[in-house]
């Protein structure tokens, strides 16, 4: 069968399904008030330990961290002269982290020292984003019964879709590049180096204040970029894959948005998850390189 014919059949099924749904359920629906989409991201406390309570985000954090370390150590332990597919993929990632991200933004000696940090950051965010797109039975808001056993319903969630985790990562990055700058130039020298070369007199004071503010803005921009990208991705998948139809009570709307949901899911998994990890690691490397550079 030719591609054109397959496409025509797919389009026919799409339109036919739409028509059948409109005939069966009608054009208008009633607004569903009992379904609250924001509860899909609500964090219920599962194990109460005061400030260290365990909820969905903590579970995802632990899964991502364990998966990162276990899989990477396992692959590193059984490296072979003739790499198999997994090893080749990890080697490509390694080269990306080692050469593009780290060595591209700082000198050789410093790159050797900071590569483990940046590599771990990259891999952790990548794993954390990617397991966020696997539906796991973690939604305790709704429960379903399968053959008499009650299990929580499946949901998409990622540790990085919660503001606190990217904020902590950004804070670690902030502390480490400030520490590195102070270690290389001394506290006074580091503060002086915030002022660009060639600025003298009263202008320098104003620029200094701006640079301090922009340093703190880095915390915000790093964390909000990661968090908002992942959260917005999950939200749009949720709405396109049916929440909109459930919320408005219109069945044919769900049929229309479903292909967009699948396309967006592929886009998020294929591009955004890896891209955000890459951006976070690259910006970390740029900040680290900038903190020790003579003139900035």
């Amino acid at each position, binding site marked *: 069968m030719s591609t054109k014919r397959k496409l025509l059949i797919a389009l026919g099924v799409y339109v036919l399904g739409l028509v059948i749904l409109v005939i069966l359920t009608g054009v208008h629906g009633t607004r569903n008030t009992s379904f609250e989409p*924001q509860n899909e991201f609500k964090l219920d406390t599962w194990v109460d330990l005061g400030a260290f309570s365990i909820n969905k985000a903590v579970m995802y954090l632990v899964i991502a961290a364990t998966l990162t370390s276990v899989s990477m150590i396992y692959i590193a332990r059984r490296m072979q002269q003739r790499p198999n597919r997994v090893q080749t993929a990890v080697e490509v990632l390694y080269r990306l982290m080692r050469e*593009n991200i780290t060595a591209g933004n700082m000198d050789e000696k410093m790159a050797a020292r900071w590569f483990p940090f940046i590599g771990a950051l990259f891999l952790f965010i990548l794993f954390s984003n990617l397991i966020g797109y696997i539906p796991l039975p973690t939604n305790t808001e709704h429960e379903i019964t399968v053959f008499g056993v009650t299990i929580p319903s499946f949901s998409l969630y990622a540790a990085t879709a919660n503001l606190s985790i990217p904020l902590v990562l950004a804070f670690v990055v902030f502390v480490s590049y400030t520490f590195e700058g102070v270690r290389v130039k001394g506290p006074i020298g580091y503060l002086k180096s915030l002022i660009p070369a060639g600025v003298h007199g009263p202008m320098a004071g104003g620029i200094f204040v701006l640079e301090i503010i922009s340093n703190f803005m880095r915390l915000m*921009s790093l964390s*909000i*970029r990661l968090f*908002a*990208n992942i959260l*917005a991705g999950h939200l749009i998948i949720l709405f396109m894959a049916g929440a909109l139809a459930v919320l408005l009570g219109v069945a044919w709307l769900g049929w229309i948005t479903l292909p967009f949901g699948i396309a967006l899911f592929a886009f998020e998994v294929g591009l955004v998850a890896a*891209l*955000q990890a*890459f*951006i976070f690691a*690259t910006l970390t490397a740029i900040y680290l390189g900038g903190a020790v550079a003579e003139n900035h």
Partner: protein
Amino acid sequence: MLTALITVFAATEEIAKAGKSIGLGVGGGLGAVGAGVGIGIIFGKVIEAITRQPEMRDEITSIQWLGFALTEACFFYGLVAGLLAAFIV
């Protein structure tokens, strides 16, 4: 008196709801416009640069994704602000 108060109260609630919707629309919509223009410029320039210097392709590609993600993030700043206005403030 009471009915008048209730109508005024209902009206202010409606106005607040309208304002929140406008906040979400402006945050998401205008954010998308700006980021859309920015992403268009980035990819246009990348095509230009690669057709001029095909041998620089790898280097340009990595910078391209950096620029794309930084621009795309600006859309999310607008969206987060809009969501804050709609659901939290």
